[in-house]
């Protein structure tokens, strides 16, 4: 049998890129991907083109559905482009997005990169020690900046982190005040920990990629090489001739036989079907699209798979003493601080990211103040500089809140529910008040169903055969299959509140490393 490659990887996001990085040590894998890339050059753009777009795409939320400022931004549109036509979803309430871009959703990510510790991996058939070597290698490969030891991880102590991104504005003040001895003891007692974010952002040159330049344009301009995304790894491996990469292909299904695995893909330009043969197939198309490929391959139209996502809430804070300060446009506009809550008021740890509001257009908040337009304009120029938003992520476990199934026409029926908590928000509001940051419970906003973009758990890892063989074993192998593996977050049986990207990558490397051809 002539194989196109010993191993085929589907997808070039965090899972696909990390698996390719690992496999390139022993074979030359073939990566199949839709691989949409940025349509425009990212230099020489006018401010209008970057922020609103020549076709005013950045204003779509005024008359249509809400979309986060980054994904609405014209130069980031490619990240979520075409998924509705190519990966259709039918849903009453799903407000999420998928990505078919080269490098996946990570093209527009907040670049938070954290290890899962054993508490996070509770319910997984693997432990932190299984992932440890891959966390270490990825930290070196990506270049991760950060500082505090907030979690039970190892990369702080071994000195492999780059210096943390400099703090500015409200984030700086919040961090400094949380370090005062009395405040720090009080926060610890309540189970609140405030520390520096761990980010895939280069605070000094690293492996040929330049140091990050702070210009306040992170929400509008992609492809800065100093912010990592997996597309760089794919490109690097391709340049070294360690992988074959074919873009413009949408993988639909696979067939496994004694001869090997036939991977059926549609060439998007011509609409023709292409078949690729391989010994082993690693699917890293994202939790939702990986499930779609698996269900299509087994023609499973009755199965209902779980769908996990991190419920999200947003708490706006105002630092009263900083009212009247202008926005600092020369700082990092992503999340500068990590906030952890592990008090008894909630069953699992809750993780948050604290953002200054200097990154987006002021007009995004124009209607968020409950006053008339002139008063709101005053608020924009005099309050935004003193404001920060704490975005909280909650953990998720299989239940009735989220599930998906495949319709015979290839459309996925997706069900998601909005979940509102509130107890943790109240504690944080009260605790932050002591640090000079004010908010009120009625100002808390909750993310829409699917709006976290962190999807997982559709083909969960288990030591036992479950879900009629549609789950995976601890090596990510589909229980119904011999050499087909799911390598992305679809294999997570639970979804901790912690950012999952680094663990997706480490787990994909673990599966790839143990692959016996």
């Amino acid at each position: 049998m002539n194989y196109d490659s010993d191993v085929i990887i589907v997808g070039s996001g965090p899972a696909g890129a990390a698996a390719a990085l690992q496999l390139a040590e022993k074979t030359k894998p073939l990566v199949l991907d839709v691989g949409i890339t940025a349509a425009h050059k990212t230099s020489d753009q006018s401010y209008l083109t970057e922020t609103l777009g020549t076709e005013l795409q950045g204003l779509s939320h005024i008359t249509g559905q809400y979309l986060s400022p980054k994904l609405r931004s014209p130069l980031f549109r490619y990240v979520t482009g075409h998924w509705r036509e190519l990966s259709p979803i039918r849903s009453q309430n799903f407000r999420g997005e998928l990505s078919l871009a080269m490098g996946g959703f990570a093209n527009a990510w907040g670049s938070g990169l954290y290890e899962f510790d054993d508490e996070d991996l509770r319910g997984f058939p693997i432990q932190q020690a299984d992932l440890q070597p891959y966390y270490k290698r990825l930290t070196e490969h990506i270049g991760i900046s950060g500082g505090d030891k907030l979690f039970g991880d190892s990369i702080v102590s071994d000195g492999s982190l780059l210096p943390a991104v400099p703090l500015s504005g409200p984030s700086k003040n919040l961090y400094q005040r949380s370090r005062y001895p009395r405040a720090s003891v009080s926060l610890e007692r309540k189970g609140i920990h405030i520390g520096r974010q761990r980010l895939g952002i280069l605070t000094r040159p690293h492996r040929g990629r330049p140091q990050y330049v702070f210009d306040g344009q992170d929400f509008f301009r992609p492809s800065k090489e100093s912010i990592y995304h997996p597309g760089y790894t794919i490109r690097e491996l391709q340049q070294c001739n360690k992988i074959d990469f074919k873009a413009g292909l949408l993988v639909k299904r696979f067939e496994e036989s004694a001869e090997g695995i036939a991977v059926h893909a549609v060439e998007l330009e011509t609409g023709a079907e292409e078949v690729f043969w391989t010994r082993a197939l690693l699917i890293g198309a994202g939790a939702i699209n990986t499930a779609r490929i698996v269900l299509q391959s087994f023609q499973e139209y009755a199965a209902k798979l779980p769908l996990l996502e991190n419920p999200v809430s947003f708490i706006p804070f105002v630092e009263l003493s900083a009212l009247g300060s202008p926005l600092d446009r020369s700082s990092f506009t992503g999340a500068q601080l990590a906030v952890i809550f592990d008090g008894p008021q909630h069953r699992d740890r809750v993780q948050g990211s604290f953002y200054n509001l200097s990154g987006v257009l002021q007009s995004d908040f124009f209607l968020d103040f409950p006053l008339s337009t002139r008063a709101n304009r005053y608020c924009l120029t005099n309050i935004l500089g003193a404001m920060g938003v704490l975005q909280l992520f909650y953990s998720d476990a299989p239940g009735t809140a989220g599930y998906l199934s495949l319709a015979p026409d290839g459309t996925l029926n997706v069900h998601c529910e909005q979940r509102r908590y509130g107890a943790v928000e109240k504690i944080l509001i009260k605790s932050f008040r002591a640090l000079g940051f004010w908010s009120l419970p009625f100002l808390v906003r909750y993310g829409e169903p699917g709006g976290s973009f962190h999807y997982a758990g559709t083909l969960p890892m288990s030591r036992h055969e479950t879900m009629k063989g549609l789950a995976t074993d601890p090596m990510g192998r589909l229980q119904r299959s011999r050499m087909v593996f799911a390598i992305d977050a679809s294999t997570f049986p639970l979804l901790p509140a912690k950012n999952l990207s680094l663990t997706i990558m480490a787990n994909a490397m673990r599966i790839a490393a143990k692959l016996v051809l």
Partner: protein
Amino acid sequence: MSPKSPIPSSDSPANVKTSDLPQVEVQYLCRTIFGVEPSSATICRYAQFHDIYRTSLLTQKQIDVALLVDRNLDAEAIEFFLRTRRRKNTLTSKIWACAYFLEVQAVEDAASVPGLRRRQNNSAVTVMLMLGWLSLRTAFEWVKGALAVYRYNLA
């Protein structure tokens, strides 16, 4: 605060109702609400916004902005009252779009005139006092808006 200055009609015949033209609308909204003269680029962008989002604007509560312009009504008061009733209405959407265009205009102006964008810090106390006053003013605007909406049957 109600708009006092009439819209100049130099670019159109005096007796023709021009207020339904996006160009006239944007000039009116920018002057009366933002106190800023829109640049020619802003006027073009507003017209473009009308063209691109024409269909989706039709799905919102329709407010006769032309009537506001023709009768020189207080757009700020009317918009605030309408927003408290139904946020998705065409007047709020158009004003929001103006806010974006004027923000871009400010950056473009700052790029051509160095130092224009620099702003003095206000003290926290000044801001808090100002917010108190603006809250009172907002309450007044709401009443004024409600009266105008019912008088001119705008909603």
